[in-house]
Structure formats: C-alpha cells, structure tokens
C-alpha cells in the first residue's frame, strides 16, 4: 500500500521535503505507527520526529490524534502545533 505524506513548517525542513509517496510496510495501522516508522527510517526522520508529542496530524484533511487509523487514506499531513493569526 502506498501513501502520500505531506510535511509542514519545521517538520518539512527537517525532512528536507514537502511531500513524499511511501510504500507502507505491513503493521503500520495508525498515525502514531507511521510517525514511529518515519523516526526509525533515517536520520532526517529521527530529527523530525524526535518528540512525537509535538507532532500533529491530519488524515485526508481532517485533524486526528496519534491513535487514528490510516486505513485507505489518500494523504497524511504531519506538522507542529499551528501558530497562525
């Protein structure tokens, strides 16, 4: 299964890319699983996701928690807490 992942703010900078399409290994069921997998994948992921508690996520445009299932989502967005206005 492939998944589009979009990164924002310092997550994007630390990942060195705005988006990627990954082939998800078996066993990645939730957003939390995905973040842990990315953190373990390479040095960039380790830096971007060193503090999972500071990461927020959206699945197909809807804000979700770490325990949200990825299911057959088209896009998962990973980013820090927002700071607009």
């Amino acid at each position, binding site marked *: 299964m492939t998944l589009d992942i*979009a990164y*924002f*703010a*310092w997550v*994007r900078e630390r990942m060195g890319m705005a988006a990627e399409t990954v082939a998800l290994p078996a066993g990645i069921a939730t957003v939390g699983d995905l973040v842990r997998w990315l953190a373990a994948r390479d040095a960039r992921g380790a830096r971007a996701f060193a503090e999972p508690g500071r990461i927020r996520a*959206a699945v197909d*445009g809807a804000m979700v928690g770490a325990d949200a299932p990825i299911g057959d989502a088209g896009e998962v*967005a990973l*980013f*820090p*807490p*927002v*700071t*607009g*206005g």
Partner: protein
Amino acid sequence: MIRVAVRAEAIDVAAELAAHDAGGHGASASFVGRVRGDGGLTELFLDHHPAMTAAGLTALAEEAARRWTLDASTLIHRVGAMAPGDTIVLVLASSRHRAEALAACEYLIDRLKTDVMLWKRESFADGRVAWVEERGADRARAARWG
C-alpha cells in the same frame, strides 16, 4: 455571507473593508494583525496547507455563524514571506447588533490562532531563523470559547 481567502499577495485592508461593507451592515467589528519588527525581525514567513488552511477558515466562519446572528464575515490570511508592517490577517464580522459582531470577531481571531493550518517562521537581522512556538496564552484564549 462568508468570504475567506488565503493568499501570498498583500492584503488591502481598505479594499477588503469596502467589499465587506457593501452590505451596509448595522454593526461591523474588525481585527487587523500586522508583522511587528521586534528584536530585529526582518522577515516573517507563513507556511500553510494548500487545501486545509482555507477550509479551516471557512469552518471557523461557519461555526461563528452558528453561534451568533451574523450578516457577513470575512477572513483573509496572508501566507509566504512578509516584512515588518505588512498585514498578516484581517477579520471582519457584521451583525445587526454590536455585541454579536464584537464577540464573533474576537472568537474568529482567537480560534484562528489555534485551529487553522498556519505556521510562522521568523528571520532576524543577526541571522537567526526560528519557527514560532505554540503559545499557551493563545490556547487559553481559544479554550474560553468552549
């Protein structure tokens, strides 16, 4: 009427006000936020999500229209690179009644700080570049609205 925009171009407050006010609303409250040049800030950059940022503004405006009797609301947020003095955000809320316009305007700007997909990065004259951290005060203000 709800009008929402996320754009890289400068916000023309007078023009937006004129467009909003075409309805001749009884009471209009507004909020304008500008880039401050504090601490030698030279650039403010705002990252956003191509679809979710605008959708978030629309959702906020719709929620405000459920909570108060509004004739019109306008939310314009700039993204990309900005300089000190530039307008970052414009919120307008109109109603027949001033209390509703004022409350809706305050709600929209408070929630905008915590609920909409936007991220600020500051660059300073001394070369420092840093993403703005989430502010506890903003969370507390937004939480007042339940």
